[in-house]
């Protein structure tokens, strides 16, 4: 099971109902949260990816278990999330972070991490960070990464405020990462 914020049971439903139900369920999902759609319709695999692209949400991926597809979609608001200012300094490139000595801290949602992350990266979703600071070593260099550099910018600021000193925001983030990916799902 991959952690998600809201779950939708669309099993047994035929096209176009999984899409219609997903559209309705999305209204109960907060921006940045992850919706899990459970469906048995084989067409839903291509359809939900296309739907996400059309309406501007982030399609994270699909895993299959015993004839049931588990689709993960993160709710986005293109106007606010992509245009957010990134203010944290210093920053570091993807390549420098991967080659560096420090810890890569991936602050994306658990589902995003599960469908592909940099080998060795540690996962703490941004929303959990303040409660999980004890898992991090303040003396260690930490490279904070997310999908586009926005969440990692905020996370880096939180870490700095908590007294961490060797913090870098990784830009451009996972969208620009072309190296090896480690996955937690098949």
């Amino acid at each position, binding site marked *: 099971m991959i952690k998600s914020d809201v779950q939708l049971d669309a099993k*047994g*439903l*035929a*096209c*176009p*109902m999984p*899409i*219609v139900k*997903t*559209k309705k369920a999305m209204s109960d999902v907060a921006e940045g949260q992850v919706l899990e759609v459970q469906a048995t319709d084989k067409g839903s695999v291509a*359809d939900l990816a296309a*739907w996400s692209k*059309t*309406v501007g949400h982030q399609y994270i991926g699909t895993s299959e278990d015993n004839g049931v597809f588990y689709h993960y979609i993160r709710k986005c608001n293109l106007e606010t999330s992509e245009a957010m200012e990134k203010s944290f300094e210093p920053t570091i490139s993807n390549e420098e972070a991967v080659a560096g000595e420090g810890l890569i801290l991936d602050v994306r949602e658990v589902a995003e991490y599960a469908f592909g992350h940099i080998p060795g990266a540690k996962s703490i979703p941004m929303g959990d960070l303040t409660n999980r600071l004890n898992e991090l070593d303040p003396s260690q260099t930490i490279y904070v990464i997310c999908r586009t550099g926005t969440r990692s910018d905020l996370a880096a600021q939180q870490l700095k405020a908590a007294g961490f000193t060797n913090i870098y925001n990784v830009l451009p983030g996972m969208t620009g990462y072309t190296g090896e990916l480690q996955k937690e799902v098949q």
Partner: protein
Amino acid sequence: MSNKVAIIAANGGLFDAYKVFNIATAAAASDKEVAIFFTFEGLNLIHKQGMQALEMPAGKEHFAEGFAKAQIPAIPELVEMAIELGVKFIACQMTMDVMGLTKEDFVDGIEVGGAVTFLEYAKDAAPTLTF
């Protein structure tokens, strides 16, 4: 990119109904503005009684089992879903006159209009589909 989808429904069988309402609800669920112009036999698809008993094409009746097995929603359910998602239904005035039908013969909330009503809507729609 146009955010409007325009559909002409000109045929009145069960298969026609699925083609029309599946595309329409999928488009509406993808945040598109959708209007369907029902003309000639297509009016059957939103006729209160007619839509309850749409026929399969001759010789294709054996597909009934496949519909049940795949748990395909009934047409009245899809019609309700389409309305709920904001799909606009336009019934063709001329066909209604020819067939002696009034607005009350159809599901609630439809508009009645002529060819120009549809053309005006469809002039900047992409895609425009005909079934």
